[in-house]
């Protein structure tokens, strides 16, 4: 189902809600602006706070195709933008030779034609799509190197790419571009300038509760509240990597599968690996720490 782009911040919030994405108003506003102004949106935040999810939700909510480009070091034009089908090109050259095709201009025109062009995500995003402009998700841009970032400048400001052998390919409809970054590297100011920027923070208690209810409905109400209170308290601890929302959801599902009705120190100990991924952090919660945190969380819930 193709949906029109939302016309107000409230519309945007409603759209996200329909797709079970619990967002705060600031995120909805910046998303609305990005859609309205047709500007790329750069989302930064700790791992597991739902950056990539935004693009997926938009894709299903608006009924647009999602084109995803996962960045990595050394990502180059050949795997991000376009590539020629060399085998077929060489074949074409040989065939032309065999057929006595003499004109070099003609041959060049034939060999560098759309037939032999393999389009990669960025080029695909500029093509016309049935359901309207697609959603282009450039995931973890910080993993690509600075050279690729520089290449993106043309794509993101003019929505066009230059293919050396043919010319410029311009977007039919401007795609909706979402970039995410985990900040393993600073993104260059020139790229940031072209985007709207939003920092997604860990949600507060009420919102996280809403998220867990929406995404992990199997967990009972008591358990859900305790889980959220516990994770919220855990984020205040001096940890190397605080658990993200994704971890909370995993944990809620895990505890629900284990038929837990409420948090018990033993069960928490056994499942800590779902929440914390560093041995130092897990070691910090040995002994009575978990028991104390559960009591504290319950105390807080009672108030």
């Amino acid at each position, binding site marked *: 189902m193709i949906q029109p782009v939302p016309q107000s911040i409230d519309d945007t919030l409603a759209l996200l809600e329909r797709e079970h994405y619990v967002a705060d108003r600031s995120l909805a506003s910046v998303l609305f602006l990005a859609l309205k102004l047709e500007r790329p949106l750069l989302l930064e935040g700790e791992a597991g706070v739902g950056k990539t999810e935004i693009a997926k939700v938009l894709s299903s909510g608006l009924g647009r195709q999602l084109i995803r480009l996962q960045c990595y*070091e*050394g990502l*180059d034009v*050949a795997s991000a933008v376009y*590539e*020629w089908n*060399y085998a077929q*090109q*060489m074949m074409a*050259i*040989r065939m*032309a*030779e065999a057929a006595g095709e003499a004109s*070099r201009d003609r*041959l*060049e025109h034939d*060999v560098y034609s759309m037939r032999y062009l393999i389009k990669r995500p960025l080029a695909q995003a500029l093509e016309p799509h049935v359901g309207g402009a697609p959603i282009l998700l450039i995931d973890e841009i*910080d993993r690509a*190197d600075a*050279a690729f970032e520089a290449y993106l400048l043309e794509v993101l400001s003019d929505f066009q790419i230059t293919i050396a052998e043919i010319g410029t390919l311009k977007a039919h409809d401007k795609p909706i571009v979402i970039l995410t970054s985990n*900040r*393993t*590297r*600073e993104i260059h100011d020139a790229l940031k300038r072209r985007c709207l920027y939003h920092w997604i923070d860990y949600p507060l208690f009420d919102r996280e509760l809403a998220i867990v209810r929406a995404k992990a409905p199997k967990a009972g109400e008591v358990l859900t509240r305790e889980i959220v209170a516990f994770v919220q308290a855990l984020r205040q601890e001096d940890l*190397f990597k605080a658990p993200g929302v994704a971890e909370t959801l995993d944990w809620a599902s895990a505890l629900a599968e284990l038929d837990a009705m409420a948090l018990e120190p033993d069960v928490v100990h056994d499942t800590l690996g779902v929440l914390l991924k560093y041995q130092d952090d897990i070691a910090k919660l040995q002994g009575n720490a978990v028991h104390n945190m559960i009591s504290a969380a319950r105390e807080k819930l009672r108030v």
Partner: protein
Amino acid sequence: MSGFFLHNLVHFARVLRAAGVQISPHNVIDAQEAIATLGFADRADMKACLRAIFIKQHDQLALFDEAFDIFWRKRGVIEKLIAAMGPQLKKADEQKSSPRIGARRLAEAFQPRTSKSQAQARVEFDARLTTSDIERLQSKDFEQMSADELMLAQKALAHLHLPDDLMRVRRMMPTSRQERIDPRAMVRAMMRTGGHSIELRYRTHRTQPPPIVALCDISGSMNDYTRMFLHFLHALSAQGRVVHGFLFGTRLTNVTRALRARDIDDALARCAQAVPDWNGGTRIGSSIAQFNRQWARRVLGQGAHVILFTDGLERDGVDVLSTEMERLSKLSQRLIWLNPLLRYDHFEPKARGIVAMLPHVDDLRAAHNIVSFVDLIEALSRPLQNGLQRQR
């Protein structure tokens, strides 16, 4: 053109030259012609005109602006000239009251010099020259240098040759060596000959220098050395290397942006501004912990080499220091510790902090004179020998 203007122009050029701008006599002739063409209508026009002729580097613009304002205000030449030229009088620009960039160097350039300091300034500093004077300066402790000598040393640091350490990255580039086939280039080459012959084309991995992450102690005991180290970092950064700079006393401050200021004085001033606890005490362990937690994952990703600049005299307990050093060491491709205490011949690593840190670094080096920085550059250029120092 009146003789006294030309006199002033030459003088102005000499002032700029003394402040480090390269101006040839030919430039001065150009400037004279340009001004003659332009006439003395407007102070701003003249400034723009002289700037276009004398300045070829962006980082010297601020210096020029400042010099121009001081020089031509002091003498009031332009105003007099404009007045003499008659009716097209315009009001001169109001002076900006921005922080004075390059003020120290300009002040020195404006001062009449004795023949001795002039001779000194003319010494072209090459890191490997063997004149006895320079040799003495190269191995002289920064702390014992006079102000003049420090300046020479700073100049020398700014002109050191970069380390030529390169690391392979995953991006490819064409090569003539027979490595990987580059099909795109091959089809291009075939098209050039009309498809009659197949020429093999190759590509290989590109190499580039790894970024440098510097963690620098700013406690009182390190003052002079820290300043020189910042000069060194600024030189690296100015020559195009990716440098992330952090200063720590009792807490960590990121000064990467400050170091990127073109002018070294400006950069140092910004660093000083950014840091709340210059010349205070140090808490090495907790500062490194803060780095590990907040920054390590962000700046150590691209095979960065870490330079830790500290005397290692920890005021807090050493347990934190040891674990955090271990973590830092595991996170970094290469960890070099620069310690100015190594200037003492009989230095022995006995302080608890030093003992705690030592097992986790790849290399411990001195950093108290120019020679030690030259050596550092050489060490950076050498590939890391596995398991040589690091006891893991």
